[in-house]
């Protein structure tokens, strides 16, 4: 029974990791930018949800569209007016600038919202339901359902719409895309906006399960990176698979080994994967 519980916990957590990573994978795949500011975007989403809940009493699931939209706008502007300026620079510089954005965002959050731990606690926060010996908190279940819905919507967007096609075209061949009249600066900005929106959604969900602080993003950026690499870069499906792998790994290790090791495990996993199979479980071959 414990095994099943651990399994279920891992899957529920994995779904959340998956959606956290999709945004990073998207930005990386399309623009070859590893977004170190990814964690802070998640953090921002969590805070937006927290403040709308605390100030106006909005239910966190219902405020999700607002969170998503505001993060999209923020991401769009950030890319359009700052990141687009260095997008063709060497990898090191793009990495460095997103680092700078991360530092700025975290410290602004510290200044404006203080380092106090926050949490979003709707009335149903503590409620569980039991099925066959398993205890499943309602919130976790709804978070999982939401992540599935958001993922599906996102995948449909990328596969079935003109915008999605434009994004994929730009990702594959920037110059050709430009020549066919695609406004690449705008597309890049939309891409980052989408990545930010997904991160924001992940943050909204995260905030219901874990404490919110300005520095929560650091570990999450790394985890998203692990998931993206695990599942294989550039594949959305891969992010979901990778998320499940990480979720299960953490769930098992924290139950059977010890709760203070999950981070070391995911980082260790990352380094191992990078060395032995950099294309990931489903990947399409980047790496060396």
């Amino acid at each position: 029974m414990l095994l099943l519980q651990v399994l279920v916990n891992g899957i529920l957590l994995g779904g959340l990791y998956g959606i956290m990573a999709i945004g990073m994978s998207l930005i990386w795949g399309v623009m070859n930018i590893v977004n170190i500011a990814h964690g802070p975007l998640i953090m921002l989403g969590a805070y937006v949800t927290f403040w709308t809940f605390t100030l106006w009493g909005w239910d966190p699931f219902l405020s999700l569209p607002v969170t998503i939209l505001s993060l999209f706008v923020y991401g769009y502007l950030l890319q359009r007016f700052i990141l687009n300026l260095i997008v063709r620079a060497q990898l090191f510089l793009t990495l460095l600038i997103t680092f700078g954005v991360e530092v700025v965002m975290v410290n602004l959050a510290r200044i404006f919202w203080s380092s106090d731990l926050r949490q979003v606690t709707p009335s149903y926060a503590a409620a569980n339901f039991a099925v066959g010996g398993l205890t499943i908190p309602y919130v976790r279940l709804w978070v999982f359902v939401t992540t599935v819905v958001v993922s599906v919507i996102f995948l449909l967007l990328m596969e079935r719409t003109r915008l999605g096609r434009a994004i994929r075209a730009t990702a594959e061949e920037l110059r050709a895309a430009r020549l066919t009249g695609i406004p690449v600066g705008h597309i890049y900005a939309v891409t980052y906006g989408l990545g930010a929106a997904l991160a924001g959604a992940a943050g909204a969900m995260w905030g219901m399960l874990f404490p919110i602080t300005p520095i929560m993003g650091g570990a999450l950026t790394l985890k998203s990176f692990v998931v993206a690499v695990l599942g294989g870069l550039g594949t959305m499906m891969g992010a979901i698979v990778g998320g499940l792998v990480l979720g299960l790994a953490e769930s098992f290790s924290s139950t059977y080994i010890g709760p203070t090791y999950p981070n070391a495990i995911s980082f260790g996993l990352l380094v191992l994967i990078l060395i032995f199979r950099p294309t990931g479980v489903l990947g399409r071959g980047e790496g060396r």
Partner: protein
Amino acid sequence: MSIKRWARLLGGLAVVLFLGAAPGIVSAFMVQFLINLFMMAILAESWNIIGGFTGYASFGNVAFFGIGAYTTGVLLTRVGFPFALALPAGGAVAMLFAAAVGFPILRLKGHYFAIATLGTAEMMREVVYNLEFTGAGTGLVMPILRTPLTFFYLMLAILAAVTLVNWWLSQSRFGYGLVAIREDEDAAAVMGINTPLYKTVAFALSGAFAGLAGGVYAYWITFIDPDAVFKVIITVQLIIMAVFGGTGTVLGPLLGALVLSAVSELLATQLATLAELFYGLIIILVVLFMPKGLSDLIRQGGLSLRYFARNLREYRI
């Protein structure tokens, strides 16, 4: 060696001697500031070996700093070594760690290398946090040394050494090999450069000096914990100092450390958080407007709007 080179070396020596006389002239507070400045400069210059000359931008050099700090700390407190042994041991362990980790990790390129190094630093923090004999989360407390000048001269000496190494790289066959690796690793390999060896040595050197700085830091600050010595912001600071001054140059990282430390110190007197925010903004501005650093700025004729505008346009979509 040519006259010009002798002149440069002597000039450097003069600066070192001048700085060495500083404690007699400036205030105690200034001495502390200088110790911190020297430390950041050591970290920036040591990063320059692997990041600037070799072109492998490590985002995890703080790991070596922390390992040096903890090795020295553990040897001082748990094992009872004298500092004269504990410090070199700190540097040595950091160097060996860099070599060992470098062997697999230096095979990665670009983003993967950078994130792998970042992950390594984070992992070290976790490991140290979980181990009993490193004091776990509570940290280690060092015995107190009542001569702050010791730290001043130690840091100065290490800084002189690492800058000398950088200078040597710019003048030596080994350094040429590193630069070739940076410029085009495949071409460097077919031209006869043992790329895996060279990269690992550069990484190890980088780790050694960062480790030494960490060892001195531990004793100086008398208390270390995992969060303090494995802080990601330290990596960020040392990289931006090197970039600001000019990666791949001998004095660039040192200059960058000097300027940025001074400005951040001015700000820190206002508000502690402001210093970090400052670094974040500086990174964004430097990457946008002067990614090639001060040395390039000076070489292209100094402060001019046109220089900045050109850099702004160079990498845009």
